[in-house]
């Protein structure tokens, strides 16, 4: 098609028709939206399929699992869940995990908030090096610290307590919290601090009453990350506990016995480990979109 000026009415018409067709081919938002929806749905299916399978197996008896493969439970049973909720060893695993995760979130938050404030507002001797050193702790592979941790916590008498795991997880969670919070705090104009101090606010009062509410979504996202990394970690939690504070992750290894693996109970236990995660995402869902960029867009 030439784009030169048309000279006859006929040429005008054909050119206009061609332009129309071109526009239709290019735009057609309806099909585009369908295609996007379809691709998104495909990804969601990919995410959900393995989880669905876990859910499916958790409602089956071991006989049904090992027998013919069925796409949904034929003899729906809650027996696997009953197993878990009736055995103290099992459900205490969840209680232990949640206990050290909450402890870790509290400890990390309390020490990371002032530290992040210092990094975002002040220059001081060694600040850059300190910040990098902090981040390096996030990069330390837990496997490196297995043996020394075991010895350290054993020596100070904290072995097999919730505090031990909570403190051990501080290794990567505190740096993470400082890093995320620093990003959000830097986004708050310094004039706010100065105005508050002129108005006679003391530092603690300003920090709690004015500053923290301003970085609410940052705190939400930080808590989300703290929960996530403490909840999912297995290696350190397993090494630092034996019976009293055993996390659910290592209780789950009990499903494999001499007589084979108890697939049903394993699936049910797996499903139950996903539930707290869903609750946490649900609570922070409105902050994720804004806050996940960690204040660094």
């Amino acid at each position, binding site marked *: 098609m030439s784009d030169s000026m048309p000279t006859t009415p006929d040429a005008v018409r054909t050119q206009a028709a061609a332009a129309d067709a071109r526009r239709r081919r290019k735009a057609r938002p309806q099909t585009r939206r369908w295609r996007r929806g379809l691709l998104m749905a495909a990804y969601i299916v990919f995410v959900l399929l*393995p989880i669905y399978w876990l859910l499916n197996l958790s409602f089956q008896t071991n006989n049904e699992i090992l027998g013919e493969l069925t796409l949904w439970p034929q003899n729906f049973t809650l027996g696997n869940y009953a197993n878990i909720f009736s055995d103290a060893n099992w459900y205490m695993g969840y209680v232990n995990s949640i206990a050290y995760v909450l402890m870790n979130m509290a400890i990390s938050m309390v020490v990371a908030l002032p530290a992040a404030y*210092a990094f975002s507002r002040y220059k001081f001797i060694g600040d850059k090096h300190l910040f990098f050193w902090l981040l390096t702790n996030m990069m330390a592979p837990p496997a490196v610290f297995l043996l020394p941790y075991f010895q350290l916590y054993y020596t100070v008498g904290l072995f097999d307590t919730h505090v031990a795991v909570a403190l051990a997880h501080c290794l990567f969670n505190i740096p993470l919290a400082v890093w995320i919070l620093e990003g959000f705090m830097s986004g708050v104009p310094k004039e706010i601090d100065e105005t508050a101090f002129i108005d006679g606010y003391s530092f603690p009062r300003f920090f709690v009453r004015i500053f923290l509410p301003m970085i609410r979504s940052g705190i939400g996202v930080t808590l989300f990350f703290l929960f996530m990394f403490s909840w999912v970690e297995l290696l350190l939690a397993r090494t630092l506990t034996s019976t009293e504070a055993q996390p659910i992750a290592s209780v789950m290894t009990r499903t494999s016995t001499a007589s084979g693996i108890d697939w049903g109970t394993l699936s049910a236990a797996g499903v139950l480990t996903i539930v707290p995660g869903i609750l946490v995402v649900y609570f922070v869902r409105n902050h994720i979109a*804004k806050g996940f960029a960690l204040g660094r867009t």
Partner: protein
Amino acid sequence: MNKVYNNRAWWLILPMLLLVAFSAIIPLMTVVNYSVQDVFDAQTRYFTGTEWFVQMLNDPVLQSALLRQFAFSLTILAIEVPLGIGIALLMPKRGWRASAVLILVTLPLLIPWNVVGSIWQLFTRGDIGLMGWSLRELGYGYNITSSPLDAWVTIIIMDVWHWTPLIALLCYSGLRAIPEAYYQAARIDRASRWSVFRYIQLPKLTNVLVIGILLRFMHSFMIYAEPFVLTGGGPGSSTTFLSQSLAIMATGQFDVGPSAAFSLIYFLIILLVSWVFYTAIMNMQKDKQSGEA
């Protein structure tokens, strides 16, 4: 932001410093201590200098674990980063569908790592797993316990399943930070979909992408629980990555000296790569600030 020079800021840092020192410096010093000694029992120990380091660097088992580790990390980065960007672009922007998709996409991130391994074990087993069973029904002799290729592909799919959401969510929130005016300007200029992506969206994503790649690299380099549960490092040692080799050496064989030396080498590699990323981020922020000023 122009920061004030004030050394009293150290008081705000102090509690955090003490805590991290307790859980990082003391154990790290223990590792350093072990790495230069040969420990027989509590009383007998000899100073060995760099002997363990030399031995570890020449150990073929560890060399191949290191190679596998790099191959794995680079492969999953090459898949997860483009896929994550693509999903972030597809995710709905408002309404109940946005919340629902957000929650579903985040889901894999919050599953304990060993459970991720269990989920994929249950999903890929030939007898009781949907994927393993379907592939066998289709006539492909899928078996992760005997075929290294199957094991590798499965672990990579598992990692993509597990961690692409992180990249996607980072990018999603990066995209949300782009003002609508940019898109309007692009529409007025009749910019194509590709140029909107290339010249508006991608530049705005660089910051979050660097964070995402850094986090992904670090975590993929420490991967332990998922392959441990799924394949146990096998068949043979074809999916034994660094953490697992180290755990075998440290807790299985109690070779304290060599495993301490190995730990330090391992840590230093991660540090080196991460330092490169870190300076890149810092330089980028500096560029941005000078650009805005």
